Each structure stands twice: as structure tokens, then as C-alpha cells.
């Protein structure tokens, strides 16, 4: 079943971050997940877009189950959640662990932009 998460980049350092119940966290594994039609997801997105000093470019992404955990559906979003595949020692993937493994092994019919709203508009 497809879920949703809210992501953005933090304003002051550009780090990819995820929304978790009122604050932004660095790890995708800690991201809050919503059901596909949950209006709270849109409300969180609208809130994130309206504030000025925390994050830039907030948007909802599709999330799927992977290896008993979760992973963004799109390849692009998995790279954001992991780090660059040419330097495994960089980015969030450096700390390893089961949640990173779930990202590494996730696959499926990913839509590469992963931006739910962009896709809807097409």
C-alpha cells in the first residue's frame, strides 16, 4: 500500500529532511507516514510551504513497503534519503542499519521525480 511522507531541504544547510509530527528530522526512517488519502498530509505540506525560515521546497512523496520497512517509491527520493551511490561514505547512508538497507533494496515502479503534486498535475 502506498503511503505518503513530507520532505524538504533545510534552509540553512540544505540537508534533505522529513516531517515528523511538528518538526523536521534528518532520517527518512523517522518520517511521519500518512495514508494515501489522509488530508493531514496536505495540511502539513501547506504549513511547511507557508513558513519562511526552516525549510525550502517542501513536497509530499509516495512511500512503499520494503524489506519490512519503508522506502520512497521513486529512485530520486531514495537517493535523497540515502546519499550519492558513488560515495557510500557520504550522506545519510553512512550510518548504515536496517532502515538504510530497506532503502538500498527498495525497487518498484518508481516515478522518478517522486513529487506527488507534480505527477497529479500532469
Amino acid at each position, binding site marked *: 500500500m502506498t503511503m505518503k511522507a513530507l520532505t524538504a*531541504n533545510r*534552509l*540553512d*544547510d*540544505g*540537508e*534533505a529532511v522529513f516531517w515528523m509530527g511538528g518538526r523536521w528530522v534528518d532520517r527518512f526512517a523517522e518520517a511521519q507516514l500518512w495514508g494515501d488519502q489522509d488530508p493531514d498530509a496536505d495540511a502539513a505540506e501547506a504549513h511547511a510551504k507557508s513558513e*519562511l*525560515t526552516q525549510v*525550502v*521546497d517542501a513536497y509530499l512523496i509516495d512511500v512503499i513497503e520494503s524489506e519490512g520497512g519503508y522506502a520512497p*517509491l*521513486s*529512485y*530520486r527520493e531514495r*537517493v*535523497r534519503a540515502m*546519499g*550519492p*551511490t*558513488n*560515495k557510500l561514505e*557520504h*550522506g545519510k547512508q553512512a550510518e548504515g542499519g536496517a532502515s538504510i538497507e530497506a532503502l538500498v533494496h527498495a525497487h*518498484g*515502479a*518508481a*516515478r*522518478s521525480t517522486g513529487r506527488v503534486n507534480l505527477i497529479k498535475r500532469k
Partner: protein
Amino acid sequence: MYRYDEIDRAILTDRVAEFREQATRRLAGLITEDQFKPIRLMNGLYLQLHAYMLRIAIPYGALTSAKLRKLAYIARTYDKGYGHFTTRTNLQLHWIKLRDAPDILEHLAEVELHSIQTSGNCIRNLTADPHAGATADEVDDPRVWAEAIRQWSTFHPEFSFLPRKFKIAVTAAATDRAAIKVYDIGLRLHRAEDGELGFEVLVGGGLGRTPYLGSTIRKHLPTRHLLSYLQAILRVYNRAGRRDNAWKARIKILVSSLGAEEFARQVEEEWEREPRDGVDLPDEELARIRAAFAPQGFETLPPVSAAFQSAKANDRAFARFARHNVKPHKVPGYAIVDVSLKAPGETPGDCSADQMDVVADLAERFSHDEVRVSYEQNLILPHVKLDDVPQVYAELEAAGLATPNIGLISDIIACPGLDYCALANARAIPIAQDIAKRFADPERAEVVGELKIKISGCINACGHHHVGHIGILGVDKKGEEFYQLTLGGSGAEDAEVGKMLGPALPADKVADAVEQLVEVYMRERAEGERFLDTFRRTGMSPFKEAVYADAR
């Protein structure tokens, strides 16, 4: 090498102060991201997948040891200890924090570097022949003109909001090492029959979604009128270029829709109407710039070096390096030494801070303090005594910088792709790594000979795939990474846009396909033919048959 005077320095200082103020206002929430984004882009600061990316301009690819050491310092202090040299001879740092950016710009300004006009719809950083001032092949030093254009185009009040970005490349050599035919404006210095120095002016080249080679709109422009003529081109473009569709806004679309002849007519008309005094540089200023590039410090040496010859005879690895990475210099007893940033398995164009320091030291000790960046994402030590080449080689080798593969199959151009870039559809780096590893055996690569592979992770074509002998374009097919191959492109003086091989291939089939293409070439090639020559002779069929044999 041009050194800043007080005026150049003040302009840079004022710019850093401006950006510091703007960034502070943004971080405090006093301006919105919509307002700030164009400002940060004007300073080369992009937001990418993992962090901000700072694109630092390296005007006409020319560095000194002090500049390169500063880049190393910044990479180590504010990034993760490496940087990525691009096909535009810029350096990209991929892990930058907005809060650090003003300090970084201040550090850069100390060594006369900046990130001005590395983004936005303005005249971007200039590129020029990286062998300028070192090759016997040139009629003049293109850096003189590149520097004149750099100054003229910096914060140009009329041309900072063009329909789209605008890139200019300059060469003065018959061999095109600056890809001038795929630039918005390509300038080729040459001498007319009466000996007068002038520019052949090409306009409307470019890659991206619709690749075009530039058309010559003027065969001979006397050099003193360079800037007024550029102003005329830019003014016609600024007024008439399309602004309704970003994909059709580059000057190539205007030139192609008007026709090169009509475009040239409009430029000439504009140029004739506008007074040139005050735009074209006075002779004194040109002389001042020229003096900064005057050759100096060259010793009178015999053309043959015993030390170099004996190293070649005694060390096969060095001999191979000499064959591929050492080029003739205009001064007897000197050589141009290519520093490969393409060690198999590494990321093309990436250079660690430690490696930058090594190259900076070598430049200081052995290359008149000069380093160049090539659009093929390698570094160059332009003025090395043949006697010193074995020593330079040894130190490069120790730093992983002596891969003897310049122009060979593993000397692959690749953009950062989906591993970093917010615009990419697919990864480029891992594909380059796969291919380079297949051809890591230097003997095999040498037998295959010159073969230029260029990979882009999206249609914007930062990896110049259209002009690769083998071009590879990453595309997104329902969320999977696929790769579209083209053959027969060239970005050199025999420029051509490559032709599509066939349906796109999945990521894990690309290196296999390259092997198959190479096999066909090896089978079909006639004496002395490069891959490109064989392709041009045989056409697509044998290559297509080999790659898609299984599919039939």
C-alpha cells in the same frame, strides 16, 4: 596569468558584501525563497538533492597554485574534502551550507576567484583552449580575449536577464579543445590572408534538448571590435529571443528560426548603428591585459631531453603516460602534461582536496605556477620541462593522478547525474565507472585508441552526450533508469551531433553494449582509423546489429 588590480578586487569585495547581506536577510526570514532563489543562483548557489551546491567559476579554466590550494582548503573546510570539475571548467562543491556560503565567497575573493554568473540567464563563465599560451598550434593567446570578455560581461547591466543562459568559448588553435561549435558564441582566432588577426564568429551552437552546431555569421572580425560585436549579438538576442518557453529560449533557436544569414544581417545592422568607442577596449587596456599573459621564465633548452628519453626507455608505464598524457609545447624542451581525473572506478572529474594540493605543488615547482582545467574534466600542467616530466609523473602516480588514458575509452565525461543533481533523470557516474572498469587494462585501452564517451543524466546535456563518439543519455522510463546511446558525435573541430543507436538500454546493459560497439570497431577498422572514423565510414548498421542482436 592575469592578476587583479584594485578595481577588480573592489568589485569582488562589493559582491561578497552584497551576498552576505542578502543571505543574512534570507536566513532571518526577511525575504522569501522566491525572492532569494534568483539571488543565490546569481552567486552559483544551487539547492540539490543532499545540500546546496556551489559552482565556482574558473575563468577560461586557468588556475594558479594559490587558487587551487584555496579550492582545496574550501573543499576540506566547508565540504567533504573533494570537488567536481565540470565540462564548463567550473568546480562544483556538492555539500555546501547556505550559512557558510558568504565566508566561502570571501575566501575565494582572496585568491581572485568567485562564483559570479555561474548560473542564471546571463553571460556565463568563459571557456578557452586549456593549452592557451603553451601550444605551438595557436595564432594568439586566447586568454587575452577571454579576460577582456570576462570583464565586459561581469554584471553587464543590459545582459543580466537574457532569455536564457549564454556561454562563450574562445580558441586560437586549429585543433579545437574548447568545443566552440557547441557554444552560444564560439570564437576562433585566426589570421586573414593579409596577416590581420581576427575572429571567426560562430553563433547558435548548443546541446540540450535540441542540439545544434554553431553557424559562422562573420568570417573575420578584426580583434579590436570584439566587444562591440558581442554587444550587437547579445542585443539582438536579448530583444528577439523567445521568452515564452524556456526550452526554446536559447540563441540557437533564434538563429535557426531566422536562419543564420538573417540573424547575421540583424547583428551587422545593429553593430553598424551603435558607436563602438567606449565599448571596444582602448589599445592601452588591451596591452595591459596582454602583458599579464606574456610568456616568462622559459629557459633555452635542447628540444630533446635525455632524462625524458631514458625514462621512456626504462619504464613502460612512464612510456605509456608519455604517449597519452604528454603533449608538445611551443617552447623547445617543454611539454604540456595532462593530469587525468579519470582513474578507473573513480568519479569522472572528481578531485580530492589532497589531490588538489598535490597538483598545486607540482604547478608551483614545475609548471610556472599554472594549472588549467579542460572541459573534458581533467587538469593540465601547461609548462613542464621535459627533464622534469619523470618527477612530475612519479608524484602524480603517487596521488592517483597519472592514469595514462587521455582521449582513450576510460577518459569519460560524466555529469553528476541523479547522485547529486536536482534536474537529473538518471545516474551518470555509476555508468562511467562500469565502463571505465571494463577497460581498466591500459594495454587494451591503448589498442582501442581514441574513443570519447560522454554521459549525461538528463537532456540538459551537461555531459555533452550529443558530441561523444559514443554518447550516453540517461532517461527515465516509468521510474527505471534507462540509457539512450548515440554514435558518431564529436565536439572537436570536426564537430557533429551523434545519431541514435536504437532503443534505450537498462543500466546493467550499457557497459556490455559499449564492449560490443568496441568489438565491431576493432573488427571493421581500417589502418589508422579511430572509432569515429570507422563509424563515419561504415555507418550505423554493423554497430546496431551487434548491440541489438539478442533482441531480434
